[in-house]
């Protein structure tokens, strides 16, 4: 304490205290306002729907039609549900940049609040799968890794590869990598079946099983490289490249060296 009191008359003491105080107030306000935002009453919901409608008219209606009934180049959105909107817009797939093959994950155009508003608007048109809440998504508690692995290999690996690295589909379409995908989006993809993916309804794969799959994917993601460098976990193709370039290449280089020294 004596040490600190020695510096209390230092010329930097005043500004430093001010910065600490400002940071403290800011953080407190931020936390308080975040907890205040959560409740959504009917009034908030109808406001969100209205906001979502405005965003939709500006950003989506040129392809999906004024009332989301679809058009020549885009499907109807009646009944796709909030989960679908959250997945497609939240991962940046919609609005689509290139319509040639399939929508790819990119930086989202809309922020979280705008996505929620859009989802509320689409959900208000007709009932559909809702965005899973954090309580539903507690895969750490409700999932089983080994069972998830079995389910993954049964249902997902044929497109997404044995380690969730993604794979090729026909005509340039592809199953994207699952590494680094948020649990919420994996769950939403399962219940809405975006792009070429089939819908895995709760009858096919129960919610608990879905969480097991997510838990297995997260385990695969976190798994250390047990055998050394993985070369992308895509199987023997990269291994073959390594053998020819690093293995035999190195050995031939050494053979050349051994025989030149002899002269």
């Amino acid at each position, binding site marked *: 304490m004596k040490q600190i009191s020695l510096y209390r008359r230092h010329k930097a003491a005043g500004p430093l205290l001010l910065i600490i105080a400002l940071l403290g107030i800011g953080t407190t306000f931020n936390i308080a306002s975040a907890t205040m935002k959560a409740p959504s009453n009917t009034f908030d919901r109808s406001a969100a729907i209205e906001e979502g409608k405005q965003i939709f008219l500006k950003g989506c209606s040129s392809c999906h039609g004024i009332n989301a009934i679809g058009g020549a180049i885009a499907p109807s959105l009646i009944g796709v549900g909030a989960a679908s909107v959250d997945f497609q817009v939240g991962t940046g797939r919609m609005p689509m940049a290139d319509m040639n093959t399939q929508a790819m994950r990119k930086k989202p155009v809309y922020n979280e609040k705008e996505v929620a508003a859009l989802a509320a608007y689409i959900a208000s048109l007709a009932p559909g799968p809702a965005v899973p809440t954090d309580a539903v998504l507690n895969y750490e508690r409700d999932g089983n890794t080994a069972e998830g692995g079995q389910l993954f290999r049964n249902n997902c690996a044929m497109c997404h590869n044995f380690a969730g690295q993604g794979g090729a589909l026909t005509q340039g379409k592809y199953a994207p990598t699952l590494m680094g995908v948020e649990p919420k989006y994996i769950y939403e993809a399962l219940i809405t079946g975006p792009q070429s993916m089939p819908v895995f309804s709760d009858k096919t794969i129960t919610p608990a099983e879905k969480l097991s799959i997510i838990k297995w994917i997260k385990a695969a993601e976190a798994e250390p490289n047990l055998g050394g460098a993985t070369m992308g976990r895509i199987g023997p193709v990269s291994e073959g490249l390594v053998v020819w370039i690093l293995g035999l290449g190195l050995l031939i280089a050494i053979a050349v060296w*051994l025989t030149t020294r002899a002269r």
Partner: protein
Amino acid sequence: MTTTEKRLGAAANFVDERLGAAGWMKKSLNKVFPDHWSFMLGEICMYSFVILLLSGTFLTLWFDPSQRDVIYEGVYAPLKGLKMSAAYASTLDISFEVRGGLLMRQIHHWAANIFMAAIVAHLLRVFFTGAFRKPREFNWILGIILLTLGFLEGLFGYSLPDDLLSGVGLRITSAIVQAFPVIGSYFSFFLFGGAFPGVGFIPRMFTIHVLLLPGAFLAVITIHVMLVWYQKHTQFPGAGRTEKNVVGHPILPVYMAKAGGFFFIVFGVTAFLGAVASINPIWLYGPYTPGQISAGSQPDWYMGWLDGLVRMAPPLETHAFGHTISWNILIPALIVPGIIFTLMAFYPFIESWITGDKREHHLLDRPRNVPNRTALGAMSITFVLIALINGGNDILATNFHMSINQIMWFSRIAIFILPPIAFIITKRLCLSLQRSDRDLVLHGRETGRLVRMPSGEFVEIHEPISAEKRWILTSHEQRAPLELPPVDARGVKRQQALKNKLRVRLSKAHSVAVPKVSAAELKEIEQH
């Protein structure tokens, strides 16, 4: 004599009196081996085989070759409690619970891949330099047998752990077996001990993989190496090298030291790969069940071209007399490789039939001096490479954002078009290189020094090349094409006119060359 020398002498005498080995040893230890890096490719094959034997023996101590169901209770959590075969469970145990097990598994697998790569590189060296010519045709065929054995041994090894990837490989194997007309399905039942996947295949495969095939390998490798020993190694043309001698180092001490050291280098590189790079992470694939498959399921690289051929085959099937003939498997997986391997095995005889050359050859060809053979090799490599690329079409499609269908159509067309183009380009290249050799001999090396003559003319100074180099560039033989006129010297009509016509045509194509510098030409230019 020192005491050590006395003792060694006594020991050697003891052995010699009983085995009479002194004469043989003296002859053998003075044997000379020529020195060139490409002659060490075969050594890489042999050393990787030794590594395979050692690491493989280690793995058999823990591997349980059984398709019996077990519940996995090992340390790898993501698979805990799953039902799997004992083969897969024991491979997991080798990977995670046996000390050094994962390293040994990875060394074994990398060594297998290096083994096959070195065999292919060795084969290409022997082909392009004409080392297969008389008297070494048998050794060439033994080499082809070793390559074929390597395919089988690799396939079985890949299939033993019974993980999802190896199961898929077996599925395709069973499909290929079934594609044999008429006997196919019976043969498959016999092999797998029932309908796929059966219960008998893994134990059977294990015995073949660790006993029969390694035994066959050992026998064939021994004959292969003994023939090299007996027939002596070939050498590249050079000063003092003739068809009747071998220029190089005696086996003791130089060659032995180098070869012994090289073994440890090969072992070192393999162990290094095994330590730093993951290969076949079977725990990620999961246990095999026939209902599952992973995207991007591939065979190891040496089978990749066969997979690629199957992938590009159009779906053709014939139903006749209660049998189905799957042309889409039969042609790319059995007929085409059958033709390729037969032609490859008989190539030495085919070439000597074309050239009519029945003499012994111990001096190697420079690939450019036999344009037709070199072009044929380039054509075959192109064919296999296109097939190999198509074997990885899904991986290419995802990593380079291409359409898998486009890659497939590219391969379907390219496999017919690109190999002939490669043939023509290579032949032209060889002839151009011959032309440049001719220039080099006649006008010497371009020094890049420009000199201005008194008349104002600029000329580049050419330096004559050394006599040794000139010998290398001109010592090869340029044979005239065969002539088989329809009526022979005695006025008798020759039999088999059509066959002779073909032979003459091929011979003509084979002997296309830029005429090499003759002694007269060299003399003439020297007088300038």
